[in-house]
């Protein structure tokens, strides 16, 4: 479903801040794979997701989504194949627009936007039903401005928007990192339900080792712009945080130094 072939990306080339963020990274996802991505700060996790999403173009290499070469496609064109949820709850929604208007925008992802009505009565009913599965009471607030919602509500809404038109690939960039633990658990639970319901191919970054182990069928760990650990199937089910750390030390030759990951 997703093929990343040997991609490179250097930020600020030729300056003192030059940083090789992706170093010949390759990754292939099968249809229906739910892959969790872990790694320390600056390992290249978000960079990999942004490369797939087309936030900028990669220096070298090739990216294919469902066999389609998207390497040179601009961000808004790739959006037709992708659903995205960001770390910052402010990023995924339009605050000054209504809940139903945000959903209507997402519903038209990948379609030509004409002078037809921006939202129809039939859609409203559909959205009301969809919002019910979030169990946050949003189905009664269709015309509320999204800016009035809490961070967790906004992330849940963004998740719904990302999956409203079934994407070929769902990209989750630490989408629970900015939430309190209770809310984060709720949003993760909603994520699991939607991904399982629609059998979505998913790439989820998390800084939480426990979450990375519990969710998904495959786990990859990144360091210095490369994948250093790739565990799937039965082997992943048997993982614990402790032996994941041991494997990390073996693969990288250093100790894991991300407190946030260890403490949770």
């Amino acid at each position: 479903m997703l093929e990343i072939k040997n991609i490179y990306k250097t930020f600020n080339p030729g300056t003192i801040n030059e940083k090789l963020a992706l170093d010949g990274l390759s990754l292939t996802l099968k249809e229906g794979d739910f892959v969790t991505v872990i790694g320390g700060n600056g390992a290249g996790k978000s960079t990999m997701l942004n490369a797939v999403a087309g936030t900028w173009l990669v220096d070298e290499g090739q990216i294919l989504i469902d066999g389609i070469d998207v390497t040179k496609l601009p961000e808004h064109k790739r959006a037709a194949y992708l659903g995205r949820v960001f770390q910052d709850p402010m990023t995924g929604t339009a605050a000054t627009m209504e809940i139903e208007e945000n959903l209507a925008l997402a519903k038209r992802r990948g379609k030509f936007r004409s002078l037809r009505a921006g939202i129809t009565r039939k859609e409203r009913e559909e959205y009301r039903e969809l919002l019910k599965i979030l169990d946050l009471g949003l189905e009664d607030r269709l015309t509320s401005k999204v800016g009035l919602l809490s961070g967790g509500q906004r992330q849940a809404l963004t998740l719904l928007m990302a999956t409203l038109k079934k994407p070929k690939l769902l990209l989750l960039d630490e989408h629970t990192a900015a939430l309190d633990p209770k809310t984060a658990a709720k949003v993760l639970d909603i994520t699991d339900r939607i991904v399982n319901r629609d059998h979505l191919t998913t790439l989820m970054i998390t800084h939480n080792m426990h979450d990375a182990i519990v969710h998904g069928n495959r786990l990859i760990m990144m360091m210095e712009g490369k994948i250093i650990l790739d565990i799937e199937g039965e082997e992943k089910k048997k993982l614990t945080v402790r032996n994941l750390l041991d494997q990390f030390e073996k693969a990288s030759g250093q100790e894991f130094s991300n407190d946030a990951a260890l403490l949770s």
Partner: protein
Amino acid sequence: MDILSLVNALPGAAAQGLIWGIMAIGVYLTFRILDIADLTVDGTMCTGGAVCIMMLMSGHNIWISMLAATGAGMLAGLATGIFHTVMGIPAILAGILTQLSLYSINLKIMGKANQAVNVNKYDLIVSLRYVKDVPFYQNTILIVAIFIVVLIALLYWFFGTELGCSLRATGCNPNMSRAQGINTDVSKVLGLMLSNGLVALSSALLAQYQGFADVNMGRGAIVIGLAAVIIGEAIFGRIFRNFALRLVSVAIGSILYYLVLQVVIWMGIDTDLLKLLSAIVVAIFLAVPYWKAKYFSKPIKRGGNTNA
């Protein structure tokens, strides 16, 4: 201080305020919806009038002339949009570049700095002679008011369409818009064209109203437009939530601006100082929300809603 002379001047001020109201609605589209301060309008506010007057003088129908004026404004917006999106120039600078080039272009359109038309010779829609002592259906205030109502209705419809929604989303959150497949560059260019089209239409009406187009008639237009937007929001912001009503409040803001201006002139202020005063008033009103947030922000409510 003859109160009668003030009363006599008020209908004219209202008419002028209404005409500038169309311009202010254009400014509202870029400033509030697209979140761009577009300085092109200082140039477009002359281009529309120049095109309209010159087409009239060469014998074209008044409606065709106004349509052409609107089209010229849209082209100016397109130029700014291309500077900004294709060439990556910051929006403010892109607007200034177009504005400056329009100064030359406006001179070339008119052939000289000022071109006048005689209201008796041409079939004008609005004029300062049509404010009083004419049948009501010829009254400039009524005609411009109808223009505004029709334009607001059209804009209300447009911003409810798929395309219009994508423009609003672009102004609100460009990252989210791209993630939802919206080409934000196209949205910005469209918004700039729409806005400058409205400004040029307003300019065409203003040139007819005053009977001439002048290369300096747009100077400081952005400040007047912003003043109208801000006055409208300050007075009606809390009660007018609906988009169409917000546009109405901008138009009313523009009328109030011109009425206050008339009163200030009547009180005998040195008219050389008017632009300085306008700039100071706009600066203070723009600062108010910032000061409010900085010095008078209420502490965040603790506890409360634990729902996700």
